[in-house]
């Protein structure tokens, strides 16, 4: 019973981490990128590649995951977001990020293989330790650390305040002399690094698997929508709720209905409280 709880919390925190990545991207660009889950997938795959294949120390593996995530975040912004945002305010970014996500997933599948491969142990530990296993505590700790770090970043640093200014009103920020293109690129690099970190930390839970991206994109988005778009605390709560629901649903009904129940949760929340638990009310469309 305790294992179900801790499994749910750990996967939930991974979803919450993806939701945080969504939030960082959304704050400066008002774009929800389909590539968000794929960033974490890359983090897991590159981490596993550096440690298992290249036989590097795990700190270097961590570095590889973060660099891969950050690079892919920058690529997303430069390739799929910048031109589309300059062109118009249509929902074309959905298509461009979807295209990029498919490409990176296929490329990862061709290079890494389509089988899930085990992620190496980071800290020497017995396999029989149950709930104290590192595969549960690493993602939980990492996500909480990420959330606290982001909060400090937004509140205490100049760049964090610039991010906030852009998320409030990009035009006003530009009029105040902020280079919005550069800040957007920075936010994508930052979110990419965070996504890579999350994928690395949760690697032992999810395995290094090329098709993980789409699942994470969807579940991270559900966590975000349930918690409220733009709210980091909401992302953590939404992620935890989703993860626990998933774990208990598969404990009671079997694993086949996980996805159905997750989307059911999303639909209920959206029907009852469209802005999510802690989100701001949407402004009117005119």
């Amino acid at each position, binding site marked *: 019973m305790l294992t179900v709880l801790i499994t749910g919390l750990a996967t939930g925190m991974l979803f919450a981490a993806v939701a945080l990545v969504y939030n960082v991207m959304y704050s400066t660009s008002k774009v929800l990128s389909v590539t968000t889950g794929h960033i974490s997938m890359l983090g897991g795959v590159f981490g596993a590649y550096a440690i298992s294949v290249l036989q590097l120390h795990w700190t270097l593996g961590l570095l590889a995951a973060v660099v891969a995530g950050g690079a892919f975040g920058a690529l997303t912004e430069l*390739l*799929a977001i910048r031109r589309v945002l300059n062109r118009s305010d249509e929902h074309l970014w959905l298509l461009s990020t979807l295209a990029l*996500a*498919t490409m990176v*997933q296929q490329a990862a599948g061709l290079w890494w293989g389509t089988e899930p491969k085990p992620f190496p142990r980071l800290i020497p530990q017995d396999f029989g330790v149950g709930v104290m296993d590192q595969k549960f505590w690493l993602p939980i700790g990492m996500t909480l650390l990420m959330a606290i770090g982001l909060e400090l970043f937004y509140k205490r640093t100049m760049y964090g305040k610039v991010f906030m200014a852009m998320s409030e009103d990009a035009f006003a920020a530009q009029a105040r002399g902020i280079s919005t293109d550069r800040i957007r690129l920075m936010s994508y690099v930052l979110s990419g690094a965070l996504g890579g970190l999350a994928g690395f930390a949760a690697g032992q839970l999810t395995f290094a698997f090329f098709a993980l991206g789409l699942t994470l994109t*969807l579940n991270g988005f559900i966590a975000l929508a349930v918690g409220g778009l733009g709210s980091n605390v909401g992302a953590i709560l939404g992620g935890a709720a989703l993860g626990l629901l998933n774990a208990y649903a598969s404990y009671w009904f079997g694993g086949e*209905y996980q*996805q159905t129940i997750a989307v059911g949760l999303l639909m209920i929340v959206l029907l009852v409280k469209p802005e999510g638990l802690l989100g701001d009310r949407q402004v009117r469309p005119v």
Partner: protein
Amino acid sequence: MNSLTHTHKAWLLLGGLLIATLPGWAGDQYQLHLASLIAVYWILIAGLNMVVGFTGQLSIGHVGLLCIGSYAFAVLAGKSGWHPALALVASGVLGGVCGLALGLPSLRLPGFYFAMATMAFALIVNDLVLAQVDLTGGGIGLPGPLFPAPFDSPSGFYYLVSLLALGVTWLSWNLGRHMWGRALISIRDNPVAAQSVGVAVFRAKLTVFVFSGVTAGLAGAVFASLQSYITPDTFVFELSLFFFVCIIIGGRGSIIGPFIGTVVLTALPELVAPLAKLGNFFYGLLLLVVVLVVPEGIGRVFDIIRERLRPRVVHREPISPDLARLDRALKYKP
């Protein structure tokens, strides 16, 4: 678009003739199979085009509806022993009902939310198919039954799907060029403005989504029969992306564009071997390039080339003040 010119009629006649005589001049059985596959895809894409191209609702989960149609046909005509024609109709109806069930909650959501909801729908359908082993055979799959006598040969089946495709095209053409189509395009371009001039936005979206569900169900039924064996692996999420790319490349708000897109994109990987290996990477790349360079669709490229070759004549009418009149006006005293 409203009335057909003689050139259009000539092209239509030529196209119809080509389609009708295809079993005569197709090189081998495989090419005929490919032509049938194009027709099957087109049945779905013609309906999806109404949703994506005209109404601007980016549904990336239609492969779920296709899957439902396929399994409905395989179960009803195969296991339960219904007449295939009846099963075909039932698949269409079931597709429509599932479209309604999916559209009712999700069409209220804005862009990205809607896309995610439809994607989740596709994943759910796949999960359920895997879970319901008694009904669908789980991961092992089901055989797709053949149609009876005149349609059981490859060429007969080809005529059947072509007829269906023709019917769906005719329906969507009628839908697109009249008041409905205008209303849908207005929803795509500006939902608020559409609402303010009296378009019932949600009802229009829902109706067209149910229509696309029916076509997806029909397409699924003939797809099962064409593939002769279906497993959950047939209905991967990337198939949705393929449908999507066909429409975006052809250009939104057009019917002939996505049709050409479907023909070219289905045939291309079969004819050019290296592309088949890259598969979905190629489709992703294509989608990215089209969205970044020509979001209006490939047809726009031809327009640009035509304008380069034959620049439009711009009438220059210099504006100069009528000095005499101005003078009179200034000196005018009542």
